[in-house]
């Protein structure tokens, strides 16, 4: 995956990703998607190209359990979210809906950098600045869900939850 980095700070809440004042759009996701991250960066949807990356500090996605938050990031065409850390419900939701959530040191990535993300190899390459970073793999249980495309495809295929053999 190749795209441009869009930088955000620490503690980006689900209120900033999918605001409560637009609660009535939750059953109209294409419309809600137009407002993704609007309260952190007005007009964000009009700035990005498909395959671009959201790059953030710590505790990305803090707050609400609203699955609509990672969903509209994905629907906006964002290829992956890279952050120093994620809030736990957001992280789990992202994997469940097939949005790559990558934990890495984002301090060295600047706004506008061209990035290349290889999910299989587990690397982020900063093409603008010329360095590569490895990121940890997902926990096996999450990797399996992600490999199927998310939790719904996983359940449709297997009919039940089962843990990877250890």
């Amino acid at each position, binding site marked *: 995956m190749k795209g441009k980095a869009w930088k955000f700070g620490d503690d980006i809440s689900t*209120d900033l990703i999918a605001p409560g004042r637009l609660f009535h759009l*939750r059953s109209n996701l294409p419309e809600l998607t137009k407002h993704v991250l609007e309260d952190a960066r007005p007009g964000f949807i009009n700035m990005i190209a498909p395959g671009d990356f959201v790059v953030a500090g710590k505790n990305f996605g803090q707050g609400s359990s609203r699955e609509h938050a990672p969903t509209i990031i994905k629907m906006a065409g964002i290829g992956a979210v890279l952050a120093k850390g994620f809030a736990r419900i957001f992280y789990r939701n992202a994997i469940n809906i097939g949005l790559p959530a990558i934990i890495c040191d984002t301090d060295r990535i600047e706004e506008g950098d061209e990035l290349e993300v290889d999910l299989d190899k587990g690397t982020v390459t900063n093409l603008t600045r010329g360095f590569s970073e490895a990121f940890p793999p997902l926990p096996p*249980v999450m990797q399996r869900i992600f490999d199927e495309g998310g939790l719904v495809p996983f359940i449709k295929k297997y009919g039940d*939850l089962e843990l990877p053999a250890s």
Partner: protein
Amino acid sequence: MGKTLAEKILGEHAGREVSAGEVVIVRVDVAYAQDGTGPLTVRQMQSMGIEKAFDPSRVVFFIDHASPSPRLELSNDHKFLREFGKQAGIRVSDIGNGISHQLINEEYAAPGMVIVGADSHTCSNGAMGAFATGMGSTDVAVAMALGKTWMRVPETIKIVASGWFPRGVYAMDLILHITGIISSSGATYKVLEFTGDALASLPMHGRLTLSNLSVESGAKAGIFPSDTITREHLDRLGRGQQFREVSSDADASYERVLEVDVSALRPTVAFPHLVDNTRTIDEVGDVPINEVWIGSSANGRLEDFQEAARILKGRKANPGTRLIVTPASRRILLEGMRDGTFMTLAEAGAAITDPGCGPCLGIHEGVLADGDNCLATQPRNFKGRMGNPNSFIYLGSPALAAATAISGKISDPREFV
């Protein structure tokens, strides 16, 4: 090696002994969603081709966030939930009943249970000695359909609270203080376990406040051992037979122990726009307040309103300060009507809204104007939380909120109690 309460409950529900760090599949006792997360949950169940609950008596949808509905899109979401509930034989708790977590507390939660909810404040019922945690719509759809979920067994941060709560200092001050120390992500993936002499005698309403705000430091759950207070609470609700003694082993292993002397606490306020941005009342300075809100799953119980009413009795809210009051459930509304609490608050100038989430998430019933300062007893003060990114939310206890409503600026409840 002893086990923590979290390890014990998850072990019981996994059918074997477990330790922190392991990933397990656990049976779920109760699974629920609300009107913001519920429609997506239903659509995901439909996508999976499982349109019924594993056990309809243990699955509920709550209409509480936009209750009653302020606009047609939400009315249609509610209709969608009601129709699904009818077709699948699943309870849909309708407008005016109250907030999911409060109703789960009143009607379902018991010690030793695993409870999952499509709302981040599901952790509230850790106060009952249950392992209660928030998840997204799809995870809850799977839990509703299959009666199970996967979990990583969390490490536990033990809170030991000693001393006694001074006048004007409450559970809300303690949890804001703790969040300020741990930080907004300091407990991510962990369980907060609440122990100590100061909490052994803390009534259930205070325990619910502590467990509710556990998620604000990133915690997966905020749990209390069960005791006489839990038993009496269940008795009062007519569910005494569901009491069980649950606690951590004396030799359990904790990741961290945080000791707090509650006697040394002062009224505490979380400043915009993070819950860990805390100051004690002496550090607050002059902050004029346009709207005071007393309510929410964190502080919407009868005792919260009684405390506010004690301060507001015979007084009026400041003319420049709107005062909004929201009981967390119909039961609380009825009790507060009978004992005169809501009469006192209405006479003091409160606008009393229906049992539910009220203005908490910026949907309705108290959305803030540009530049507004709000003092709320709710668990969150993120930018834009109450419907306007150009506004500022401060968090405090119901007593602090009442004092603030009188003076029109953030005030010390100790001057009034």
